[in-house]
């Protein structure tokens, strides 16, 4: 629509889409698992404390963990049932995290938040969003109410709804845009109203023409909501790059989009905002894509937060062949798993079972860096990842810092294009962790 105005970010890459297996599959519900595991902290920010003890009976939507910290989001029971344990359980990050284990009951009684008015004001929306435990559902899991509370009133002019879904395989946002478009547009206008913004841009990659058309038709009567087609290029959905592509604004280093007058919300989050504000529903379920060549029946599923991977895999008919990698999230930024009892959390957008062929033995057969400069050419932040490999390998954290490693968004493009198959993201994460640790001292 406003294509001529777009100023698409430089760099990036074009991984194969792999969206066909699930893009035509409507969202399905699945049966309740025998046990639900709710990690107490599912957001970026202060850790939550448990509000329940083993033996407690909980309702679906009942708050079971929270903290006083502003930058936080409570967690809720996603089923009604009995608390079996409050203990450390396997987590998708590969470690054990404090979690609440719940055995679902037959009744499935619900608890809903109280809605005081039909057209709530900004304060009430913020309160409902916070109470509903909303976080960014695109993966980063940043508390949504924080994004709705700019430091200065009226400093936000644009709300961007992120419908790029630039990760391969994933189609859950695409299905939401088709199946819950009304809630999406409602959520977008609620967010706009809360922030006092002037306009909403719904940015969608042009490999999803149906979503573009469907939403475009829906908003054609609204003069402050625009659906905008973006070129398909990874990582178009990265918040900072999306702000640049749509508005030509650069989010300064170590700042947030909010600092340039923009708030970006993922499609799933926006739908959840509408459900929280209109129906008083806490975030207890989400849509995920289960895909990859090793999956017998790839699907888009609406699952309870806390459902374990093996229950989800069962719902998709199990495996066609033995997967080489099992991933929570997308193939470019997701987390490889080794334990099927790991639960889905708020930020989980997909479960992928990739065959040996699909992962193409990525970390194996590494050669030394041949300085081909592909990582430099493709880095959307215009960093020089080859130096992270050099300096990270010898522990020169200050040098990594001087090469702006802290600005890296860890999109994985450098490793994806690297002919030497260097695990750049590993060096980057290591360097960032060491730099942060040093700064804390």
């Amino acid at each position, binding site marked *: 629509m406003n294509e001529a105005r777009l100023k698409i970010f430089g760099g990036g890459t074009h991984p194969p889409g792999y969206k066909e297996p699930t893009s035509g599959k409507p969202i399905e519900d699945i049966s309740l698992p025998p046990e639900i595991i709710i990690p107490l902290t599912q957001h970026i920010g202060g850790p939550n404390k448990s509000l329940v003890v083993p033996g407690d009976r909980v309702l679906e939507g009942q708050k079971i963990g929270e903290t006083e910290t502003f930058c936080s989001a409570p967690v809720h029971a996603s089923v009604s049932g009995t608390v079996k344990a409050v203990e450390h359980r396997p987590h998708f990050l590969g470690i054990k995290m404090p979690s609440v284990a719940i055995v679902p009951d037959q009744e499935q009684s619900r608890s809903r938040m109280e809605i005081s008015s039909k057209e709530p004001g900004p304060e009430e929306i913020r309160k409902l969003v916070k109470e509903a435990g909303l976080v960014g559902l695109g993966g980063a899991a940043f508390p949504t109410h924080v994004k709705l509370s700019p430091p200065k009133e009226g400093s936000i002019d644009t709300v961007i709804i992120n419908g790029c879904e630039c990760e391969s395989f994933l189609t859950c946002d695409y299905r939401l845009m088709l199946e819950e478009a009304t809630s999406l547009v409602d959520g977008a206008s609620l967010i706009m109203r809360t922030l006092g913004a002037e306009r909403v841009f719904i940015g969608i990659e042009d490999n999803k023409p149906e979503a573009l058309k469907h939403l475009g038709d829906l908003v054609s009567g609204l003069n402050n909501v625009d659906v905008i087609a973006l070129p398909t290029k990874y990582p178009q959905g990265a918040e900072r790059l999306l702000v640049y592509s749509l508005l030509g604004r650069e989010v300064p280093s170590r700042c947030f989009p909010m600092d340039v007058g923009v708030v970006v919300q993922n499609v799933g989050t926006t739908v959840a905002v509408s459900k929280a504000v209109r129906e008083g529903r806490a975030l207890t379920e989400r849509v995920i894509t289960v895909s990859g060549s090793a999956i017998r029946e790839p699907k888009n599923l609406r699952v309870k937060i806390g459902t374990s991977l093996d229950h989800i895999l069962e719902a998709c008919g199990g495996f066609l062949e033995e*997967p080489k990698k099992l991933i929570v999230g997308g193939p470019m930024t997701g987390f*490889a798993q080794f*334990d099927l009892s790991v639960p889905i959390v708020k930020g989980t957008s997909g479960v992928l079972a990739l065959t040996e062929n699909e992962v193409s033995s990525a970390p194996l057969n590494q050669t030394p860096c*041949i300085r081909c400069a592909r990582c*430099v050419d493709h880095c959307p*932040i215009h960093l020089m990842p080859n130096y992270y490999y050099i300096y990270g390998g010898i522990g020169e954290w200050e040098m990594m810092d001087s090469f702006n490693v802290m600005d890296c968004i860890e999109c994985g493009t450098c490793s994806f294009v690297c002919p030497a198959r260097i695990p750049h993201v590993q060096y980057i994460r290591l360097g960032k962790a060491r730099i942060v640790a040093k700064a804390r001292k």
Partner: protein
Amino acid sequence: MNAEVESEEDDAVNRDTSATIKTDKLLVTVPPHIWQGESTQQIMLWVIGSLLPVALYSVWVFRFHALMVIALSIATCVATEAGYQKLQKLPVTVNDFSAALTGLLFALVLPPMVPWWIVIIGGFIAIMLGKQVFGGLGYNIFNPALVGRAVLVLSWAQHMTRDWYLPLVSGQGFKLLGLTVKLDALTSATPLYALKQVREGLLQGVQPSMFYRSLLFSNPGGCIGEVSAFLLLVGAVVLLWKKIIDWRIPVCYMGTVAVLTFISGEDVVFYLLAGGLILGAFFMATDYVTACITKRGKIIYGIGLGATTVLLRFYSRLPEAVMVAILFMNCWAPLIDKYTRPKIYGAVKT
């Protein structure tokens, strides 16, 4: 931890689901989990492949001589790398094909009639002094093939500058594959050297345009790889099309040579086709390891190469302009990279 993993598996077995897998076989790494699929090996093979037309053609033109030099050079380079790595108890990495590529490039910058022992010495030096002493693939500062050639030029200049396939002989000219070039004066060198003599008043009656066709399609007075500029360009187009090389270095290099040659009042087409310029610009200056990696750096690097080459061609008595220019600019590449770091996203201050 282990016991727990096992009990999870037992549970899964008891439930008899098709989701059951041996979790210990799952590969766990940092993301990304997918990969574009073009490896170091494949890149090396593409470069080797893009040089094959000119290499095969040189064998047809120079017969056994070129075949011997190419085969011996590749064999020496691969053997040197494997031998050194064995001695040092390092993993042997000849299967990345970089040593083979160095061997091929080195052969292409040798005269076809060069004695066999020179090829062996040069190949050994290229890999050892050019590459392994720095730590092997990815760590060398100078282009290994050109290091080999530089040492040979300094040590056996008589072979490196005279062992051409056919000397250019006055009066008779030469006849090769149906192309006849008539020359009126006596010389025995490359077209580039002939033109140098013309500039110095030692030779008359030679026009640069006389050499266009032979330089493009069958040049007997030059190194093996200089036999056909046309076939080199075919290979270069393949590398550009496959995005294995970036256009910036060769285009800026050739462009600078063209502009400066034009300013000097010399024949632009001749000086672009002659000597090792095309081979150097597309296949050696673009060597990943020794060139600049930033986009702006590549432009500066290319311009520096062009300026150095023209300077040496017109103001130096040495016939080694391209080689010296590339080795010289190799020294500057890290510094250029340092001062041409791309402006990062978000570097602006609010």
